[in-house]
């Protein structure tokens, strides 16, 4: 190990990359929903929490095989996304944005409280530990590698779906001109419901990967909700590519900043960067 080449710095950078993958995955669903429906799901991280509980109960309590439990959890959260749209978002679709924020914020508190009542405040975890991947002196979390792959896979699959299929094209079109969609033979209500389910499914996918690394508790959303939201805003709300790029930038600030200074400073630097970008480009890095 030479003086110029710092293996620990490299480890920090690579860990930042992996964290970026996780954050990118988190931002996908929120961005999709905002981009299409123009409503911010403040309760997005709480949907993820529900997904984590679903994996936990199916796998630990009901002894389903893990992969099956995860697929089911994705289905459950997709359903929750759909339900959220039908019950909560639809009535306020044309309301002021502040009211939309308030209702989804209400759902956030509702889900937290409901989870506390239903599952208790105890921390739960799968008890599954993935091995780590060694690379000389460096060592990385397999769970993070999987999350990274899933984020990459998710973004590519989503991109193909949105650019190559009729349904995907309609999803992009509807955010540009909602009113004339019926003239194309498209039922906007169905597209919205579908997008919500898809956003939920992405939250479910994120849940499956988080549950491999984090304990589950009713307040887990607080650890991920704000940072996910920041990343989406940083990349340009509704812009999926922007969110993807922003996640990796943000993660590098956290990881490398935390390596050179105190861990806390990594976050502080990331937030300073966020504020600076907001002054420079209020609509985000890739926002229009």
């Amino acid at each position: 190990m030479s003086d110029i080449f710092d293996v620990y710095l490299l480890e920090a950078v690579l860990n930042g990359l992996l964290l970026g993958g996780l954050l990118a995955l988190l931002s996908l669903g929120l961005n999709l929903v905002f981009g299409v429906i123009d409503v911010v799901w403040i309760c997005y991280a709480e949907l993820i929490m529900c997904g984590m509980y679903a994996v936990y109960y199916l796998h630990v309590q009901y002894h389903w095989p893990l992969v099956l439990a995860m697929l089911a959890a994705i289905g459950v959260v997709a359903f929750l996304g759909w339900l959220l749209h039908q019950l909560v978002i639809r009535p306020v679709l044309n309301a002021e944005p502040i009211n939309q924020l308030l209702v989804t914020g209400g759902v956030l508190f509702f889900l937290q409280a409901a989870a506390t009542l239903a599952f208790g405040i105890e921390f739960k975890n799968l008890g599954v530990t993935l091995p780590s991947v060694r690379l000389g002196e460096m060592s990385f979390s397999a769970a993070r590698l999987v999350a990274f792959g899933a984020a990459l896979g998710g973004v590519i699959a989503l991109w193909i779906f949105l650019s190559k299929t009729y349904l995907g094209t309609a999803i992009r079109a509807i955010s540009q001109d909602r009113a004339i969609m019926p003239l194309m033979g498209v039922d906007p209500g169905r597209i919205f419901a579908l997008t919500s389910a898809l956003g939920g499914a992405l939250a479910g996918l994120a849940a499956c990967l988080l549950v491999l690394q984090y304990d589950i508790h009713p307040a887990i959303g607080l650890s991920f909700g704000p940072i996910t939201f920041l990343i989406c805003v940083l990349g340009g709300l509704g812009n999926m590519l922007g969110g993807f790029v922003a996640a990796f930038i943000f993660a590098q600030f956290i990881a490398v900043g935390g390596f050179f200074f105190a861990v806390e400073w990594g976050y502080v630097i990331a937030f300073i960067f966020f504020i600076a970008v907001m002054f420079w480009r209020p609509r985000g890095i890739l926002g229009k």
Partner: protein
Amino acid sequence: MRLFAAALCAFALAAQAQQKEIKIGFIYDVSGPFAGGGSEPAQIGTKAAIDMFNEKGGVMGYKINAIFTDAQSKVDVAINEMTRLVDQEKVDIVAGVYSSAQCVPMVQQTESRKKFLWLNVCIATAVFKDRKLNYVFRPQAHSDQFGAWSCDYINYYAKSKFHSEPKNLRVAIIHEDGPYGVGVAAGNESQCKKHGMNIVLKEGYSASAPDLSSLVTKLKRARPDVLLHTGYNPDITLFLRQAKEQGLRVKAIIGHGAGHSQIDKLRQTFGEDVNYFHSIDPAAGQLLDPKTLKPGIWDLTQEMVKRYQAVKGPGELPPHVSMGFNNTWILLNDVLPRAIKQYGGFDSEALRKAALDTDIPVGGTLQGYGVKFYPPGHQLSGQNERAFPVVMQYVNGRARIVWPREVQTTDPVLPFPKGHSFAP
């Protein structure tokens, strides 16, 4: 005229007889991360103590009317609840409180209202230090003691177990960045320095941080022998998981209460990986040697265990149950009766005087420590000078007291044996 006065008197007495209750407002967290970090067990312990007194007719004929409120693991909620308890519920005493982050601002507010505040759980020294408090009392040990304890412990065993001079021991200190973690870490640093140890890293982090991988990387680079850690629950599991994934190697890990005292939880997640971990906390009553306690105290311990397990089922009781139970018991069994008997009631003045008279010898409470509060004028006035924490080591899920030597129940296992996940 005389008749009228007598009637008035009788009326007043009757009213009082009817109202014969003491209202105590307890603030704990039954939602949010602190709940699982020990706040809920503390509440269960507290309830058990109150039930025990009320079943025997209360305290000197007064029924204890306990009002429990949920601070939701949030500082502002805790303060609001305290204000509500005092202003609307008109409680006689405010008590409980799990998090030091809540205690620090709260003491200021109760003090300005001259409301008697009895702290059960929070441990930061900063709650009392140089605050010149008059109406706040804490039977519990304080964080500077926690921090010092771990350094004394490894200093004692440096030669015999680590085969090293204390000055050659590399120590890393990491902590959550609230008053609790900061307080313990400051105690760690100053005491370990006193023993001449080499502090290779000292760093705080936010308990809700979603990622701690760069902290682990820095620890790997710093190559400590001993890791001193202070944290709550989600951050401890995140840290340990990332530490394991990234291949951190140390000879011993010593935690300081909160998350590290929830061994059942840690074992669920990490299984054998947390074997031989330590935690420093006021003793969990059930772990003490009955021989070191005054007569009758052990019966209380068993009563507490019975009542807790009736709620939560079998399993190791976290020390927080004892903090909830024992410290409430001290208030109801010692301070309150004296206030009523000698100082004519249970207003803040009477309670304060009664508290300052407290003199329980070591071994006189179920957590082993005695109680005598630092008097006004002392920089920690209101803090119990006879309290001490213990170092516990978990072996195969069971906690053993390994420090201080006077209450030690077994010899510690140091360093991590070969084959342990964190062993070098």
